[in-house]
């Protein structure tokens, strides 16, 4: 189930870079619990102007993929670093 949700979250794109929140390394964890699927994530910066939009998209996508309630937990520790970007996404950014 976690993998299903994670794969679905590859469809949630950052509107600025056109890269999924998974490939940007924003998703710290996906865990199915009795009360629903918990998604632990961060953003590239606390100043991210698309905070609400991205979180809503993640919640909606995770709920649809899991068929259950989705709870998104936004954390700032550990802080996001560019090294979390996947190799494929990095290759795309550096093209």
């Amino acid at each position, binding site marked *: 189930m976690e993998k299903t949700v994670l794969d679905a979250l590859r469809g949630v*794109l950052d509107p*600025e870079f056109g890269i999924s929140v998974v490939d940007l390394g924003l998703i710290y964890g996906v865990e199915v619990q009795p009360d629903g699927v918990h998604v632990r994530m961060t953003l590239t910066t*606390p100043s991210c102007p698309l905070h609400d939009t991205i979180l809503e998209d993640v919640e909606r996508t995770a709920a649809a993929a899991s068929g259950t309630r989705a709870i998104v937990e936004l954390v700032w520790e550990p802080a996001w670093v560019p090294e979390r970007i996947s190799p494929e996404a990095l290759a795309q950014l550096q093209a």
Partner: protein
Amino acid sequence: MNASHHAPPFSLVWRHLALALVAFPVALAGLAWAAPEVVANPRGPEALAVVHLFAVGWVALVVMGALTQMIPVVLAVPLASHRAIAGSHALTALGALAMTLGFATGTPYALMAGGAAVSAGFAIFVATLAVTLRGVKTWDLTAIAVAGALGLMVTGGLLGALMAANQRWVFWPALFGAMPAHAHLLTVGWLTALTAGVSYKLLPMFSLAYGHPQAVGRWALGLLLGGGALWLLTVPLPAAWPLPAALQGTGGLIYAWDAHRLLGRRKKRRLETGLGMAARAIALLPLVVATGVAAALGVPGAAGAYGVLLLVGWIGWTLVGYLYKIVPFLVWVQRFSRPESAGKRPLATELVDARLARVAGDALTIGTLGMALGFLGQHPGGLRASAALAAAGALVAAYDLFQSQHRKGATPTWKRPFSTPSAASSTPNSASASSISG
């Protein structure tokens, strides 16, 4: 912390940017039209009319609009008053028009009324942001730069209003020689320090260049702001000008070097038009400083070249560059952020036309450099042609940005990178994502 929660209404920001995008090509077209007079007398009424339409109608309104959007979002504090911001916009816009007409027609009362309106608009804007900034919890480099620059903004505006009044009532003769102080307080003290300070947030955000140490940036901004304040000393003591000029010139060069280093850390290698223009503006700074030195040494035509490279080049290109990021983002949020738009959303970059953006950027670049050469060569024809080219570039940019409100974005979802769920993924990133626990 929820940055987007504090975002102001789209209309409050857009009214500033839309009016500024009209003033931009008009000001440059005005320069093209009055080129012979401007070359003959860079401090004459035609030059002053063009400079103030450009500086207040275009630059100030863009900056005020951008700050209206960015301060609540980047510094995560709500604006103290939307109504006050709207009022300051109206005063500044009307004041810019009155000042331009006052200079162009030689009407002192229009000039004074316009100056008073602009000063009042600046004061209300700064006061509103000062109250807003009281809510800032973390005073980082950007927050300090914004606060310092705003102080210089109102100081420079008030000095200008005093200069206008002094033209009529002559209460302080020293003000007749205060133009360099007025110009540098605003262009280098306010605009450059503000742009540099905000860039330490925006460049990393847009190019994924995080982790850059800020120690050098603090020095650069300190010199730009401190030098700006010291320009006031030159009103009673004109001979003191080398000190603030040297401080600000040094600050500008240090910032250019540090920003270059910051961009070198970026993960996003290719810079599209927005960041490309901003990067070009940074690269121009050493030439701006060099022409400033030449102007101080009395090289013929250097003062005009310096003014063009500073205002149209460094400041103008930077603003165009950031508008190419800000406007598509604002429009995207306005049109596509609602849940019902999911699945039909373009990328923010698809709301502008890359080809038009390139044409606009190149026309502005060539036009600006041509104008500088026109001043240095004391060649009105060259200045006129270059200003016309720059005006055309400004018009294309304005059109492109206005059209972002109507574009749908053309790239089908299946053609976008990383847009479709993969089959079994073996990337280290996805493996670690599902295994990390809280």
